[in-house]
């Protein structure tokens, strides 16, 4: 099938902080470069979800005059709290005892979605062509095996794969360099890592699932600029995770929870842990009387340096969390993602102008502050396999006394899909019913994401073996997809006493958790028709 093709100097896949930084930096270096950026969301920002406490280091480098440019970066962090939660009690940890990576003075509470919208405006003003609503669905290769570009998704295909009346063929975008910046577990990035063996000699990647709700709360309880984190309840000692509560502008708080996807108990439901967390007296007292206005979830990278794949390959670069540049103990990835994007632009410029190999990316990245940060942070996450108590003890010694300079590196031993225990070895968990005020069910939550996929299109959550969910997962793990999916996409229904696996793909909020956690890696997340998925506002 021949498709229309368009030629660019650089094609960027994904309109998040890393891809937009590459786009802006490229145009700053040479305004004659033809740069195109594809975004699968219906607009830039629609699929962006993040805490977010923002460190401006990379933005200071990219747009030093950002403060004069009417940015959505407004709320400076003024106060910090860290709580250890027991079921009803809490212990406040003095902030001077926090490792410096977890201190947030000089940082800002922002909506990353809005920051990306703003970055997209800057990029467009510089002449970058941005196409929202166009997922890159396929990688194109040259005869010599190097990456040639990407193809956008065909539009107007029905459930059975036939062309509808409004069929619109995807097109090919060819580039001297293609930059993959899809974010955590990008579906093309995943293919590239495997095809070019980018993770050879690296530890398996580690992921988490992050939830976020925006609440409008009582003025009297709102302390603009307050950043609070918690660890402990409702998670048990062996499950990695914690919460955040950021008091943003307009009486809003960003309330969220992150759980490591290396959790072992198949009965665990990350969504319900988050809902239950909100019933803790320390949290409830703040949101009581308020109103939840947004909900969303997204997988995130936690593997750090040990799991960071090679970020270059012939014809392409893999940047931001498509590779995995998030600083886990810092709970921040936007600044490192942006830095990786800036370095990508510099690399590409030298590649195009001076014919240097893309492999110079590695050295440039290693020399950057982003790498140094990841190096110093590398031992925190793996120490959590010893449980919360020893991990905190170790982290204290590692981060406060030795400042990350231990002469050894702890390894990540397992991929997240390998960690589930069979049902008979796992504890049952009884989650309280949602009250519809503080805690909610998945249906009403997904409604707030504005997600939608036109119903007459192929299912974008593909099973390699369609029998596996019922034949294997149901018996062994009570099909954990029912619980790890934050949007209620997967259900096991009884029909005439026969269990049936149902995929409500129109509910999908593009978090990628299923692609990561499915015990047999049986679910493959591919791009749905363009413009589908959540319509996040100020997430």
């Amino acid at each position, binding site marked *: 099938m021949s498709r229309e093709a368009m030629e660019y100097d650089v094609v960027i896949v994904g309109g998040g902080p890393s891809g937009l930084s590459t786009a802006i930096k490229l145009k700053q270096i040479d305004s004659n470069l033809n740069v195109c950026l594809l975004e699968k969301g219906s607009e830039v920002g629609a699929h962006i979800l993040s805490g977010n406490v923002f460190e401006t280091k990379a933005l200071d480098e990219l747009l030093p005059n950002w403060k004069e440019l009417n940015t959505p970066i407004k709320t400076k962090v003024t106060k910090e709290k860290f709580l250890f939660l027991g079921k009803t009690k809490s212990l406040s940890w003095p902030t001077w005892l926090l490792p410096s990576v977890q201190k947030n003075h000089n940082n800002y509470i922002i909506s990353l979605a809005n920051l990306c919208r703003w970055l997209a405006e800057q990029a467009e003003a510089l002449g970058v062509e941005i196409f929202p609503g166009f997922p890159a669905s396929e990688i194109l290769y040259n005869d010599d095996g190097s990456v040639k570009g990407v193809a956008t998704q065909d539009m*107007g295909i029905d459930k059975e794969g036939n062309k509808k009346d409004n069929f619109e063929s995807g097109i090919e975008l060819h580039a001297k360099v293609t930059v993959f910046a899809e974010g955590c577990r990008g579906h093309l990035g995943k293919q590239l890592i495997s095809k070019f063996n980018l993770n050879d000699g690296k530890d398996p990647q580690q992921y988490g699932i992050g939830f976020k709700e925006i609440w409008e709360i009582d003025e009297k309880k709102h302390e603009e600029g307050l950043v609070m984190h918690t660890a402990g309840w409702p998670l048990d000692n062996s499950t990695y995770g914690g919460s955040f509560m950021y008091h943003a502008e307009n009486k809003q708080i960003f309330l969220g929870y992150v759980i490591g996807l290396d959790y072992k108990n198949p009965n665990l439901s990350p969504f319900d842990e988050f809902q239950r967390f909100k019933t803790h007296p320390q949290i409830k007292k703040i949101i009581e009387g308020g109103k939840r206005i947004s909900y969303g979830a997204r997988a995130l990278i936690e593997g750090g340096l040990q799991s960071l794949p090679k970020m270059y390959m012939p014809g392409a670069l893999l940047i931001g969390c498509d590779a995995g540049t998030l600083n886990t103990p810092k709970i921040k990835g936007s600044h490192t993602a942006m830095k990786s994007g800036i370095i990508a632009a510099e690399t590409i410029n030298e590649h195009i102008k001076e014919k240097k190999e893309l492999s110079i990316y590695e050295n440039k990245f290693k020399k950057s502050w982003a790498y140094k940060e990841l190096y110093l942070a590398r031992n925190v996450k793996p120490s959590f396999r010893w449980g919360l108590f020893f991990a905190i003890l170790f982290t204290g010694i590692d981060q406060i006394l030795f400042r990350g300079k231990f002469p050894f590196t702890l390894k990540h031993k397992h991929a997240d899909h390998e960690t589930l225990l069979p049902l008979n070895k796992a504890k049952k968990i009884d989650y309280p019913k949602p009250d519809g005020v503080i805690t909610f069910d998945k249906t009403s939550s997904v409604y707030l994401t504005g997600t939608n996929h036109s119903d007459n299109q192929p299912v974008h959550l593909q099973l390699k073996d369609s029998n596996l969910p019922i034949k294997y997962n149901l018996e062994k793990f009570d099909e954990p997809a029912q619980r790890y999916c934050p949007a209620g996409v997967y259900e096991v229904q009884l029909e005439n006493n026969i269990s049936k696996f149902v995929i409500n793909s129109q509910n999908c909020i593009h978090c990628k958790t299923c692609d990561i956690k499915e015990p047999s890696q049986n679910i493959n997340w591919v791009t749905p028709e363009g413009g589908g998925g959540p319509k996040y506002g100020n997430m």
Partner: protein
Amino acid sequence: MKILVAVKRVIDYNVQVRVKEDGSGVVTENVKMSTNPPDDNAIEESVKIKESGKAKEVVAVTVGEEKAQETVRKALAVGADRGIHVKTEGIVEPLAVSKILQKIVEKEKPDLVFMGKQAIDDDCNQTGQMLAALLKWPQATFASKIEVKEKSLEVTREVDEGLETIETNIPAIVTCDLRLNEPRYASLPNIMKAKKKSLEQINASDLGVDIKPRIEQIKVEEPPKRKSGIKVKSVEELVQKLKNEAKVI
């Protein structure tokens, strides 16, 4: 033949609309906006008529704030030839939009004016009808099928009783139903080309029409929360409850 198609920028149909705390309206900040869905049908039909050779030019027009021009760009990307953006600020009621469109019609002299049957934000369903009255043109509303003849249109209308087919002279106003067609997708190359198409900006104040709001909005509130249902064990219990508790039979 020349077709003028009017489009409006509204809150995206997937977004859960939230009422402002003070009841003064709905929240539009940090909310995804899109073209009013039946307006997409109006654009599609105009472009189809042009493709069939029965029209020479399709001009897309919108009335609204600066960002409203995104909807015109989208119309240009799916086949409209050029665009007009009439800049306004604040609330513009259907009567004001009709008056503005009347001026545009007088200037552009189209043979047909297409638009969506109503906008999903205010659900007024008035602009097309008012414009017809102002221009003294015939109107065909809720069109679900349109056949262009020599000097007339045959329009099938979605009415409460079923389908009604009427014939109207040209020039005419047609408001489009969602069943009219399936709007096409904008292809990437066409979005690029659309960026180069002409988009004229006009200030509403330069048109010399009075667009002051006539309606005073007193309060906006959310519909009352629906109470959760209960399960009954038998038909008898259901009948008894409908009779004695709900008192509907």
